[in-house]
């Protein structure tokens, strides 16, 4: 879930950008390393980035909002490791802001943290855990996609609650409000994304 341009107060926008910087820098460092070892990986990484963008632009059926990152970046995370996805995800988020007006420049930092860092890491961690536990691949991947989406949405709600604490009940109350309102759109989205991912995996395995 993208926080739109200008929705966060200036101080929060700056603070989240500072939080995002080390992850993006680590991703850039990792990218340099990968490219030195395998020059051809540059084109594959770029293709993965373009793929992640396209997924985010495809509207999911019967749900407001669009398919979010974990399928794209989660997949990249499995192929190239999650740290480099922080950089690719940031580039994709920048293009989403500039091409689709999804998210924004001042909210880029906050969106990077929720969608290019937390989402992919949760998806990646769950995928690794489920393979370690010997779960069927489709189950593991559907779990990773769904919970990666939900993690993103929880982080976004927390970011909004920090920015706009409830005058009476503070952060907790505000988190409840944002999580509650956005649950209407984000929970079905996460489930749909999990289902789509199962179809994708089955189709890919069937090939």
């Amino acid at each position, binding site marked *: 879930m*993208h926080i*739109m*341009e*200008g*929705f966060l*107060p200036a101080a929060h*926008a700056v603070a989240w950008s500072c939080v995002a910087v080390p992850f993006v820098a680590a991703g*850039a460092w990792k*990218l340099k390393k990968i*490219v030195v070892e395998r020059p051809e990986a*540059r*084109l*594959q990484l*770029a*293709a*993965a*980035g*373009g*793929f992640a*963008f*396209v*997924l985010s*632009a*495809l509207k*999911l*059926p*019967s749900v*407001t909002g669009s*398919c979010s990152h974990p*399928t794209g970046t989660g997949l990249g995370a499995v192929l190239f490791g999650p740290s480099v996805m922080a*950089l*690719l995800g940031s*580039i*994709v988020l*920048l*293009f989403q802001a*500039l*091409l689709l*007006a*999804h998210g*924004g*420049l*001042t909210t880029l930092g906050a969106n990077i943290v929720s969608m290019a860092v937390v989402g992919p890491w949760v998806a990646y961690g769950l995928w690794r855990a489920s393979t370690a536990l010997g779960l069927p691949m489709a189950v593991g991947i559907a779990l990773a996609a769904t919970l990666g989406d939900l993690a993103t949405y929880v982080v976004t709600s927390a970011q909004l609650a920090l920015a*706009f604490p*409830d*005058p*009476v*009940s503070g952060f907790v*109350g*505000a988190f409840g*409000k*944002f999580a509650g*309102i956005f649950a209407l759109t984000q929970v079905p989205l996460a489930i*749909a994304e999990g*289902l*789509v991912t199962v*179809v994708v*995996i089955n*189709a*890919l395995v069937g090939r």
Partner: protein
Amino acid sequence: MSLAIDRLAQSSRWRRRSTTEKAVLALGLLALALALPPWPGAVLVLLVTWTAALAGARIGWRDWLRLVAAPLGFALTGAAALAVEIGPDGVALARDGGRAALSVILRAAAALSCLLLLAVTTPAPDLVRGARRLGLSPEITEMALLIWRFLFLLLESAIAIRHAQEARLGWRGFRRSIRSLGLLVALLLPRALDRARRLETGLAARGFDGSLPMLSPRQTVSTYFIAATLGLQAAVLGVGLWWS
């Protein structure tokens, strides 16, 4: 799935203005939108950005309104949360009568207009090249430009696949849509990787050794435009501070 913004940016009257000019204008206003109190700061910024977009860059007003309206869903749902309070007696209307919600909507609308002003006048690769001139590492900017290229290639495929699926009655109801989308993604992923492989072959024939050197167009910056922009922004800042 329309990329109206890109088409507008490529054909806008400000297409050939230097990136510096457009970035100073839009990003400066964006900073003001965020820093000044929404009344009257955001209103002034709205006024300036809309004038610049509609009268300066000559963006069609229908196209412009459609773009501004698109993210409104988020603004309204988000602001709805601000218009209520959770107290010991449950949910109640906020005591400020929604003033906080209104000011957030105003600020977001102003900031969004700044973003759109930049986006509909400046194709994203121009901004990436600008970032490179400012010292962003070539690995990152080359990656961004490559992603840009792949994004359009893959988007074109995705749209065509979706049209083909619709022609055969996919995308009708939840279950069929999930299946159609899944098949689409499963077709697109190997194609993305295949495109990367084929591009590698194609570029190898042109001496590709890992880096992607390119000659970027040089732009001349109009000091007049920059001076006028800075003057305007100073005026917005002055009025915004004085009023509040």
